[in-house]
């Protein structure tokens, strides 16, 4: 995880979850829920990744006076990075889909 230029799946899921303000621990259950339990983000991975995202200024603390626990949200830079990675993933999926749509070569 030297650079976050090309986001790993875990980083991608975590950033997607922080498109709105959330507690760190809420990310784990959310990701599990939307992937029907297929993707599980471990707490040590999550903590390491959140720290990294803050250092890179992709995520920041969200000021929430009502919450005892820390709430995070994507920064403007974080949103741009996530958008760029969505495009990269779209290209990838498009390529595979086009290939399959051509049908089997006899």
């Amino acid at each position: 995880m030297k650079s976050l230029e090309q986001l790993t799946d875990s980083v991608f899921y975590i950033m997607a979850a922080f498109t709105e303000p959330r507690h760190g621990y809420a990310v784990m259950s959310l990701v599990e829920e939307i992937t029907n339990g297929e993707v599980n983000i471990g707490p040590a991975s999550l903590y390491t990744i959140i720290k990294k995202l803050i250092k890179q200024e992709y995520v920041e603390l969200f000021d929430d006076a009502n919450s005892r626990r820390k709430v995070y949200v994507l920064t403007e830079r974080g949103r741009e990075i996530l958008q760029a990675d969505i495009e990269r993933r779209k290209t990838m999926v498009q390529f595979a889909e086009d290939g399959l749509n051509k049908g089997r070569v006899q």
Partner: protein
Amino acid sequence: MKKTYKISNGLAFFEQKDLQMLREKAAEGWMVESFKGGLYTFTKSGPEDVIFSIDYHELTPEDEEEYCDLFAAAGWTHVYSHTGIHLFKAVPGTPPIYSDAASKTDQVKRTAKPVYIVTIAALLFTIIALAFMKLAEGFLNQAGKIGFFISIVLFIPMLMTSMALFIQLLKVNKSSKN
């Protein structure tokens, strides 16, 4: 309170072996209570079928609360923390604390960095002391001899630990490529 003790196999070398040992002790009714200076302390409790995980992070008390909250939400109960080493337990089948190789690599690198620094420092000390031993006379020669023995005693275990961490890093790197 009845207590028993066990020496660690060395976390850099045999982390899994230690965690398995903690699991066996828990099944026998000895729950690990603390881990300090390579020594585990156990207290007598009812037998428990639990698995253990260990993580390494230098945390401020405020961060530690958040960190333990995350683990608790994932089913991992905090057991003990000391000098950036954190021990957790969970029921068998709980998903692992590291779910992707990239962040596991980060963890090993973070742990390895200070070890590498001390190893290099010990090596430099050894060389300097050796130079005094060979080149200087009288008092400096004596000081060199003493310094050499002290630094070599420090250097050899540090070098072994560095190598163990380096091998661990190669292993996780390999698994992240597969």
